[in-house]
């Protein structure tokens, strides 16, 4: 796959992003001077220990929170609020439990006419493998299926950028593996820019073109590790092992127990 090729155009650019949360008199320094360029069509993973500010960074990029200093630019424009060109897949289920799968996926397509909307919704539902469940409600679906609905809801609006905040965190390890290969299949097909938060080392190596490793709070970029392997990736290859060792080292945990 294509890596951070200098020929590619920058898509999401973090410029000196810092963030503190005020709590009474104390303030919690969560992010410190994050500088990062994510290229068009690139799959970037943000990897870091729990509480280091990964969700916060993603929320800032999504326009749900504003940085104390610095800014996030998308296509050269400063982010100043949420926008359906850039869609979130949330850490907790963000789909609406009161709406059917069909209505959830159609959420962002209110401006299309009936026929066009039906076409897009059906195509997206088929793409994530939920054909036949159009009329089901989220509570009738398994965790993995719910997460597929959320992915479909995001894909349906064909956004430029998709933010995923540990989308598979609540799933069992087998479903998680399936979902990862599904995401890669869809990503290769749709060529979206994806910013994917995880604290799972394996997940980041399996998915990303580049893994951005964040330090513990205050979160800073400690290193960016390239994963120069083609999909489908061989999880047993020496290269995989090497990257894994490197990432564990950066996270400050020994890989051997």
């Amino acid at each position, binding site marked *: 796959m294509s890596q951070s090729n200098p020929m590619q155009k920058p898509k999401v650019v973090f410029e000196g992003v810092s963030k503190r949360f005020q709590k009474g008199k104390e303030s919690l320094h969560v992010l410190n001077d994050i500088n990062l360029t994510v290229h068009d069509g690139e799959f970037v993973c943000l990897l870091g220990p729990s509480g280091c500010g990964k969700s916060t960074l993603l929320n800032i990029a999504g326009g749900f929170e504003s940085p104390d200093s610095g800014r996030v630019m998308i296509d050269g424009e400063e982010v100043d609020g949420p926008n359906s060109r850039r869609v*979130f897949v949330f850490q907790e289920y963000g789909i609406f439990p009161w709406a059917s799968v069909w209505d959830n996926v159609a*959420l962002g397509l209110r401006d299309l006419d009936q026929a066009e909307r039906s076409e897009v919704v059906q195509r997206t539902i088929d793409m994530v493998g939920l054909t036949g469940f159009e009329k089901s409600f989220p509570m009738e679906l398994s965790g993995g299926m719910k997460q597929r609905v959320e992915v479909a*809801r995001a894909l349906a609006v064909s956004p430029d950028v998709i933010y995923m905040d540990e989308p598979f965190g609540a799933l069992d390890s087998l479903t998680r593996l399936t979902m990862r290969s599904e995401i890669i299949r869809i990503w290769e097909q749709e060529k979206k820019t994806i910013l994917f938060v995880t604290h799972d080392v394996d997940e980041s190596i399996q998915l990303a073109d580049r893994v951005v490793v964040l330090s513990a709070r205050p979160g800073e970029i400690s290193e960016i590790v390239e994963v120069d392997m083609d999909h489908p990736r061989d999880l047993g290859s020496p290269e995989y092992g090497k990257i894994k060792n490197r990432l564990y080292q950066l996270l400050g945990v020994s890989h051997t127990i």
Partner: protein
Amino acid sequence: MTISILCLLLPLVALYFCDRLPDRAQNFVMPSLVTVSMVALWDLGVVLSGSTVFPTPLQTWDGFIELLDSNRLWGDIIASLFRVSWGFFLATAVGIPLGLVVGWRVRAFTALNPIIQGLRPISPIAWIPIAILWFGIGDGAGIYLIFLASFFPVTVGTMAAVRNISLVHQRSAENFGLEGMELFRRVVLPAALPQIITSLRIALGVAWLVIVAAEMVGMDSGLGYLINDARNAGSRYDLVVATMGVIGVLGIGLDLLIRQLEKFDEVRWGYVKR
């Protein structure tokens, strides 16, 4: 009397056999047996105490038949239900929209929440003199009191429901550009609906409690009035207890009716455990 004593032993027998029954039968058999033995206990209590005023279950049943035959019961049931339906309907019509707005708009909440919370703890019963002053004795006062009794649970419940909408759903709505009425229709209302329905249930329950009290004090028809009337007309406690039974059964009926709202697919998510 011997029958009653035997009935009291039923639960013991049932406890012994219970395990062998299938689950569904247990769910029906056990509550029925408990009820039968409670009635038996009631019967024994009256007989042993030698009371001539307090009715036995059988006398109560006869009282009930008498009420049915007198045609009076239907009129009183209709009077009570009429007041409750109108009061409840008006409270819902005002309370749900008000609760939605106050819950959603921070300004409206700041302005209105103190007055709502301030009036809420005043029992609707305490309003009876004022209700009679304004509306006279009759349906108007009853409807007004039921309005008060259900208005606060509905409004406060709806407000809380809206304020409880999860951040991730609010953000989803923002992310996909929902605004104004569309935001309201697609997210705020459906997200709040399960809890709103729960508050309707609570409100209707309270309304049914209040109407009886109101009719006992300040009205000349309805089930509450019937209770008072039966006592005043020569301590007819058989009629009093029979009417209490009717009130209980109708209360259960109302609750079952309003619970039907919980069955829609759009709100069922709010009641299932996750």
